[in-house]
C-alpha cells in the first residue's frame, strides 16, 4: 500500500501587488538615500576642502604674522649712503626689509625678506620664544681633540662655548658623558625669506648668532669661524667625519650643518688689490646694527673704481642670504636662473627685462624665478657657499627641474629637503605696498603705473620713482655718459625692488666716495620717498650737500631759480644732516596667497595686512 504522502502546506508568498509596492518603496528610499548621500558626500568633500584650506590659511597667517611682528626694521624707509648718520635713527632701523616685485604682472615672482628679532616689540603679543636651528661643534684641530670621543668633544664644547652649538647654553663640563651633543643652536634673531617656487611657498630662516656664555664672558668676537679653517686648506669649512657614537659630525657642507646666516669673508690686499681668502663667518645679532663700523674692503669689479669699503652689517645687500656677494656692485639677489630653454635673459640680475635682453622677442622675461635657494639646495655638496669660495649667487649655469622646481644642479640632495616648505599648491604669492602718495591711497605693486586725474605719474611707488637707474640727473633721458652698458636704454640697477639699503657712503681706498668719483647714482636705493620740507629743496637750501656740483636742483631752464615741474631736484641731497626734509616711511604691506586644495580643487585666497606703523617711540 502506497504510503500516503504527507500533506504539504503551501507557504503563502507575497502577492505581486505587495512585491511591487515594497520594491517601489525600497527603490524610492534607495534613490532618496543615494541622493542624500551623494549630496552629503559632495558636501563633505567640499567641507573637507574648506577645512583644509582654513587650516592652511591659519598656518600661513600665524607664521607670517609672527615674523612680521618681530621685524627689526621698525621705521621702514631706505637709508641713503652719506657722510653722517645722525638722523638715521639706527635704533629703530636695524637689519633690513627687502621686497622684490620683479614683474608687476606676475603674481608668482615676488620675494619678501627681512630680519627678525624676538625682542623687537615686547609690548605686543608677539612670539618671544627663541628660534632653534641646526648647529654642530666646530673643533680646532690644533686642540688635538679625538673627534670620535663624545666626552672629549663635549668637554671641548664646554671649554669653547663661543660657537653656535653652545648658543643654546646646553654645556655640561663635568661628569661622564653618555648622551650625544644636541646639535642645536638657539637664537633670538634671524634672516627670514618668503618666496614661491613652483607651487610651493617657502619660508627660509637663517639664524643670527646670539652667543651664550655662562661664565659671563661678554667677549664674543669674532663671531665667526676662524680663518684657515683646519682640514680643508685656507678659508674652507671642512668635514669632521660622519656619525660617531651618535654624534653627528660636520659633513663639510656649511648649510647642511648649520641653519645660520653666514657669508664668505673675502678681503682684498690694499696694495695689490688681489683677494685674500678668509673663510665663512657667522652673522650675529651685531650684524643687525647698521652702524658704520666693521668695514671691509671689497673689489667691486664691475664699476672699475678700485677697492671700495663695504660695511659688514646686514643692511648691505652683499652680506645677506641670497644676494651676490662678489663682483656685483649692488649685491643683487639671485632670484632668476636660466630658462627651461637654456637661455639667460636677465644677465644683470635685476629681475627686469631690459632693452636687448629679450632674446626670443616674446616681451617676457623667460628666466625662471627661484626666489631664494631652498634648504635642500644649499645643503648640496656642489653649492659650497659659504663654506667654500664658490658663488652660486652669481652663476648663470643653473637650471630648473620643471618637475620638482628644484635647481637641478643641487636638486638631488636628500638632506634638509622640504624643511623650509610652508604651504603647498600655491598659485599666487603677492606682496603689495600701501601707497599713500596716490590720490586715493591703496595697496599697489611696486613699480605700478597709476596716474592722477591729469594723467601724470602718481604715488610714491610709481615705476618712475625708481631712482636706482643710469639716469644720473633723473631727467628721463640718457645723457652723454649715462648709458653705462651702452644698450640705449635707462636701466634699473637694482630692479623693481624695495630695499632699506645701507647707511654708509661707499668709498674707495683713497677716501673718495662715489659722488666724488662722479657716480652718485650708484648708491641710491631704488625707491626713497622724500619730501623736500618747508624750504622746498632737498638738503639744506643753497648748499651742495653731497658735493656733486649741483646745488639743490638741476636748473633745466637756466633761470637761476627753482621751477617746480621744470627743474629737477638733486635727490642725492635729500635727508642730509641739517635739512628739514622728511622721509615718507612705508606704512603697511599686504600679502596675498592663493592656494588650491588638491582633493576638492577648492581655491582659497588669504590676504593679510600688516602695519609698519608702530605707534609712538
Amino acid at each position, binding site marked *: 500500500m502506497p504510503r500516503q504522502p504527507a500533506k504539504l502546506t503551501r507557504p503563502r508568498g507575497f502577492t505581486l501587488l505587495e512585491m511591487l509596492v515594497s520594491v517601489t518603496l525600497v527603490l524610492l528610499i534607495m534613490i532618496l538615500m543615494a541622493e542624500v548621500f551623494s549630496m*552629503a558626500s559632495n558636501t563633505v568633500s567640499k567641507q573637507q576642502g574648506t577645512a583644509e584650506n582654513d587650516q592652511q590659511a591659519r598656518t600661513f597667517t600665524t607664521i607670517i604674522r609672527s615674523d612680521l611682528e618681530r621685524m627689526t626694521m621698525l621705521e621702514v624707509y631706505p637709508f641713503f649712503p652719506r657722510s653722517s648718520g645722525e638722523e638715521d635713527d639706527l635704533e629703530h632701523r636695524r637689519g633690513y626689509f627687502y621686497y622684490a616685485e620683479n614683474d608687476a604682472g606676475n603674481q608668482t615672482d615676488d620675494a619678501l625678506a627681512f630680519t627678525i628679532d624676538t625682542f623687537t616689540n615686547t609690548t605686543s603679543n608677539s612670539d618671544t620664544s627663541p628660534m632653534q636651528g641646526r648647529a654642530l661643534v666646530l673643533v680646532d684641530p690644533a686642540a688635538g681633540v679625538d673627534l670620535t670621543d663624545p666626552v672629549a668633544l663635549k668637554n671641548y664644547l664646554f671649554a669653547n662655548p663661543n660657537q653656535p652649538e653652545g648658543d643654546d647654553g646646553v654645556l655640561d663640563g663635568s661628569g661622564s658623558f653618555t648622551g650625544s651633543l644636541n646639535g642645536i643652536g638657539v637664537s633670538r634673531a634671524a634672516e627670514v625669506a618668503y618666496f614661491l617656487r613652483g607651487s610651493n611657498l617657502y619660508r627660509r630662516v637663517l639664524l643670527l648668532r646670539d652667543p651664550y656664555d655662562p661664565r659671563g664672558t661678554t667677549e664674543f668676537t669674532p663671531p665667526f669661524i676662524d680663518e684657515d679653517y683646519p682640514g680643508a686648506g685656507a678659508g674652507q669649512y671642512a668635514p669632521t667625519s660622519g656619525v660617531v657614537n651618535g654624534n653627528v659630525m660636520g659633513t663639510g657642507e656649511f648649510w647642511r650643518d648649520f641653519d645660520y646666516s653666514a657669508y664668505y669673508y673675502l678681503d682684498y690686499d690694499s696694495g695689490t688689490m688681489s683677494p685674500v681668502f678668509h673663510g665663512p663667518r657667522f652673522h650675529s645679532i651685531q650684524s643687525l646694527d647698521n652702524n658704520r663700523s666693521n668695514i671691509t674692503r671689497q673689489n667691486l669689479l664691475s664699476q672699475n673704481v678700485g677697492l671700495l669699503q663695504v660695511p659688514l652689517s646686514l643692511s648691505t645687500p652683499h652680506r645677506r642670504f641670497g644676494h651676490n656677494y662678489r663682483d656685483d656692485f649692488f649685491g643683487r639677489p639671485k632670484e632668476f636662473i636660466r630658462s627651461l630653454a637654456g637661455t639667460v635673459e636677465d644677465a644683470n640680475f635685476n629681475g627686469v627685462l631690459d632693452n636687448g635682453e629679450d632674446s626670443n622677442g616674446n616681451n617676457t622675461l623667460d628666466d625662471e624665478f627661484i626666489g631664494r635657494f631652498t634648504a635642500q639646495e644649499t645643503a648640496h655638496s656642489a653649492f659650497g657657499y659659504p663654506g667654500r669660495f664658490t658663488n652660486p649667487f652669481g652663476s648663470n649655469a643653473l637650471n630648473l627641474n620643471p618637475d620638482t622646481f628644484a635647481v637641478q644642479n643641487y636638486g638631488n640632495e636628500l638632506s634638509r629637503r622640504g624643511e623650509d616648505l610652508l604651504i603647498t599648491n600655491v598659485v599666487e604669492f603677492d606682496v603689495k605696498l600701501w601707497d599713500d602718495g596716490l*590720490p586715493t591711497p591703496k595697496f599697489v605693486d611696486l613699480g605700478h603705473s597709476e596716474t592722477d586725474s591729469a594723467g601724470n605719474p*602718481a604715488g610714491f611707488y610709481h615705476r618712475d620713482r625708481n631712482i636706482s637707474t643710469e639716469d644720473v640727473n633723473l631727467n*628721463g633721458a640718457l645723457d652723454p655718459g649715462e648709458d653705462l652698458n651702452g644698450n640705449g636704454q635707462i636701466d634699473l640697477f637694482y630692479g623693481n625692488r624695495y630695499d632699506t639699503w645701507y647707511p654708509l657712503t661707499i668709498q674707495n681706498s683713497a677716501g673718495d666716495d662715489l659722488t666724488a668719483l662722479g657716480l652718485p647714482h650708484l648708491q641710491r636705493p631704488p625707491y626713497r620717498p622724500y619730501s623736500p620740507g618747508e624750504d622746498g629743496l632737498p638738503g639744506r637750501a643753497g648748499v651742495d650737500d653731497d658735493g656733486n656740483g649741483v646745488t639743490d*636742483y638741476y636748473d633745466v631752464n637756466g633761470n637761476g631759480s627753482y621751477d617746480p*615741474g621744470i627743474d629737477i631736484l638733486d635727490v642725492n641731497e635729500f635727508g642730509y644732516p641739517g635739512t628739514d626734509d622728511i622721509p615718507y616711511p612705508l606704512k603697511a604691506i599686504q600679502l596675498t596667497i592663493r592656494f588650491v586644495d588638491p582633493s576638492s580643487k577648492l581655491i582659497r585666497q588669504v590676504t593679510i595686512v600688516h602695519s609698519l606703523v608702530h*605707534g*609712538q617711540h
Partner: protein
Amino acid sequence: MTRHTLHPATPTPTRSGSTLTEVLISVMVIGIGAVSVATLFPLSVMRAVRANQLTQGTILRYNAEEQMETQGLNSYWMFVVEPFGFGNVGNTPWTSPHHYPGAVGDDNGNLFRDNIGWHPGPDGYFGVPGAAPGTPQAEPGYSDNSYVSDDIPILDEFEVRFAGRDSSLIVIDPLGWWLVGDIDPANLNLRNTFGANWPAGYTVIPRLNGGFRGNNSYSASNPRVRPTFIGDYFDSGSGTFVRFDIPAATTSGNANDGNLDFGGWGFNRQVAERIATLPDQYSTLLDTLYADVADIATITTRDELLLPNKLPVNVLADPIGIILAGLEVRATFFGIQGTATTNKRVTYTRSLLHEDANGNGALDPGEDIDNDGVLDVMTTTSRLMKLRSDQPLPANFQIERITLQTQLSDFTWMATARLPSRPPTQPQIDVVVFHKRRFETIDERPYVATQVAGSKKVYTIDYSATAPVKPWAKKGGFMFDMEHGYWFLITNMSESGTTITVTLERDVRDVPFGPADDLTEIIACFPRGIVDVFPLGAK
C-alpha cells in the same frame, strides 16, 4: 528487487510572508533612521560654515587692527586730539624721521605731538602767536612776564567734549559712513552719527570713516605733509562731527625730479571698501576648461582674449556688465608654459580692462590704465576681453582653464572704541566682523532695554512705538550697549506681543572696566549679520 519508494519531503513548517503593513512599518523605521542621519549633514554643514566664517572673521579682525594702526586709529593720541578739530596736519612737518600716526599739528603749521596735553586756545596758536616753530615761545602753555598763553590743558577740554563721562564712544565705520547714509538720503547725518532716532537726552555716537586727512597742494610756503588722520573732526562751533573736506588732487611736476608731490588724499567708497572688507571673497562668473571651448577661443594678441562663442551669452554679459559698472574682474589662466620638452604648469592672473570710465568714448586723462595710448574698451556685444598691454600673457603659454571672478565684499568690519578720559590709557576697541552686513538704519536703531528685576543679564525691549518694526534680536546675535560701548552675545530670546526678552551671555556688571551703575535701563541696538566681536589687545 525492492523498489524504494521515495519518501516524501519532510513537511516544512509553514512560513508566513511579511504583510504589507510590516513592510510599510519597516520602511517607515528605515526612513526615520535615514532622515535623522541626513539631518546631521546640514548640521555639520552649518558648523563648517560657521568655522569658515570664524576663520575669515579672525583674519579680517587682524587686518582691521593693522589697518587702524596704519591710520593711527588705535592710538590714544589719535582720539584725544581729534575732537579738537585741527583740520590740518601742520604746515611744519615734524623734523624727526619717525612717523607718528597720531602726530598732530594745528591749523597754523605747528606740530604738537609732544604737547599733547594742550589745546592752543582761542588764538589758535601754541604759546605766542606766530612764534617760530622750535622756539620756547612756540611751546604750548608758554608764558613769561609780558605774555600769558591762552593755551588750555588738554584734559580739561577732553572731558568737556565728552560730557564728563568716564569713557566716551566712537564708532569707526568706513563702509557704514558711506553706505548707511547712502541708503537713507534723508538721513545723511547718519554718516557722522551712528544710530538714528536717538531718544532725547542721550549723546549720539560719532561715526568716523577711517579715511584720510589731506592737505593743500605743495608750495614753498606750504610743503606737503603726511596725512595721518581720520576724515572727520569735531567742530567745536557747531558741536557736531563733520566730514573733513577732501582737497582736490593736484598735478605733480616732473615725475622724475624726485619731488614727490602728489594729489590731495581722497576718501571715497573704493578706499572705504579697501580698508574695511576682506578681499579674499570672490564670485566666480566663469570657470571653464579652455580645451572644451577651443573651437573658437583664441588669443588674438597677447593682451586680448577672445572668449568662445560656445559659452552662453549670459555668462559673458555678466562680467562685461560688471566691468562697465566699474568693478574689476579678475581673470585667472591656468595652463602650460614652454615647449613640449621644457614645459611647466603655471598660473597667470590678470585684470580685465575697461578704460572708458565715464563712457564718453574718449581716452581722458587718468583713464589709460596700461599707458598704451589706446582706449581699451569692452562692450556688452563683444567677447573680446582686454588685458593690460603692459601685462600680456607670454607667447608660449597654452591656456587650459580660465576663471573670471569678481570680488565680493561679504566680510566687512567696523569698530567701536571706548575712549579713556585720561592718558595714557589706550582706547578699548572692539572690532565687529560682519558677514553680508545690511547697511540699514534699523540695524543701528536705538531701543530702550529694561533690565528684568532680579537678573543682571535679562532685558526686555518694548518696541510698540516702532511696531511692526522690531529689533533684530535673535539667539546667537549681539546686543550693543550704545551708552557704554559694550557688546553682549544673546544666548536666548523670547517674544510676547511687542515685547522682546533677551538673555545676555554675561552679567552686564561683569564687563571689565564697565560702568559702575546697575544699568537698569540702557540704550541698545541689534545689528544683523555679526560673525563675532573681537576685542583688540593693547599694542
